[in-house]
């Protein structure tokens, strides 16, 4: 059975590198497409995509995934690594290359992505503006507190 995102995060938290490989296989194509739209060179694309997955690895045990899905968080982190270029240096629609990926997401996740990648909100701001609270995988077991990811 394929890992769903919460399961994948739990494996990442446990330090399972195979989970990182799985996450990369699952989300890197979408991140690459997004990065292609907002970066100046292919080298920049590679840089921000790689840094995004390293951020996932580094912060796995403190992810704030209010909807439990990883792709919105990864896209927001990707934009963060792209820096000012995340506003789309090409002057076009920054999400134009990931429309199909976004259509597969629930409305709330899609809105999260739009707030972060189009309107430039931080992840926390976007979540709060949608009335979402820290939640997701790490808060479900017992009293383990969910932590905000400070980016």
């Amino acid at each position, binding site marked *: *059975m394929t*890992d*769903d*995102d*919460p*399961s994948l995060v*739990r*494996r990442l938290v*446990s*330090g*399972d*590198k195979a989970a*990182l*490989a799985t996450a*990369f*296989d699952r989300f*890197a*194509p979408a991140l*690459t*497409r997004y990065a*292609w*739209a907002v*970066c*100046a*060179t*292919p080298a920049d*694309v*590679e840089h921000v*995509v*790689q840094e995004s*997955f*390293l951020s996932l*690895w*580094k912060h*796995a*045990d403190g992810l704030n995934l*209010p*909807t*439990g899905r990883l792709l919105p968080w990864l896209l927001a982190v990707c934009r963060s690594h792209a820096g000012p270029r995340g506003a789309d*240096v*090409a002057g*076009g629609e920054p999400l134009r*290359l990931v429309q199909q990926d976004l259509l597969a997401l629930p409305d*709330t996740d899609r809105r999260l992505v739009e707030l972060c990648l189009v309107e430039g909100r931080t992840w926390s701001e976007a979540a709060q503006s*949608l*009335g*979402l*609270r*820290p*939640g*997701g995988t790490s*808060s*479900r*077991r*017992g*009293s*383990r507190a*969910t932590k905000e990811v400070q980016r």
Partner: protein
Amino acid sequence: MRSEPPVGDDLQRMLVSMKQNVLERAEPRKRRGRRTGVAIAVVALLAVGAAGGGVALGLIPTTPEAAPVSTPSPTEPARTITPSSAPVLITPTPTPTPTPTAPPYSATDWSTWTITADGAGPATLGSATGADDAALREGLTPAPPLVDDTGTVIYQWGCANPNARIWERSDGTVVEIVGDGVVQTVVISGASDSSVTQPEVGPKTLAGVGLGSTLDEIRAAYPNVVQTRTDPVGGTADTFWAVPDGGRFIVFQIPAVGTSVSRVYVGATDEPAYDYCS
């Protein structure tokens, strides 16, 4: 870039290169906090143990790092001392009022499950440990084990309490807490502890109450509901609302920051453990 993104073999080459770079640069991560948490729990439980005997010891996992001592092997299920092992006088107990039969359900669709005093869907109180696994596996995935850097399994279910058998799905969790070889408590949780903004879909009681229900809805469905386990100091600020049912209890947990049910317990106590996973 104004150019079109790479596709086909060009994209694959790019992805392979990036993936290799990421995996090489991802440093092995130490288990942060977990060991500290366990150590704190050990100290606390040993302190409790001075007064409470060996009951607490069953909750302490034997880690691979632990020095060999004359204890059961790490793979042996933790034992919990319960009154059932002591000689007791068997007294007739009142026959509980028969619970209405739960309607049929689909194991893969937990919104069809009914929460009763017997459990929820395939998660059934009194089942032998593991007996529900096949049915649960149809709609949920076992929580992955926590392993250390050498690949050694530390917690089979990713949880410090070896008696908590955790099953996950994208929108929630089902936990069977076992003791004496049988399921003693079933816990149904939503995807978030703070089901504030969106109603959650999941198992419901015959009265239609479940994840996402408000306290008003609970009270309307169960006028006999009572609040239990208030923890004014040092405990959780969440509230717990218990409905007695045939000698067991269905307990609804509402988070302090929320207004609707985030977790439902079914078991023999009206005061379920808030933190069943440590």
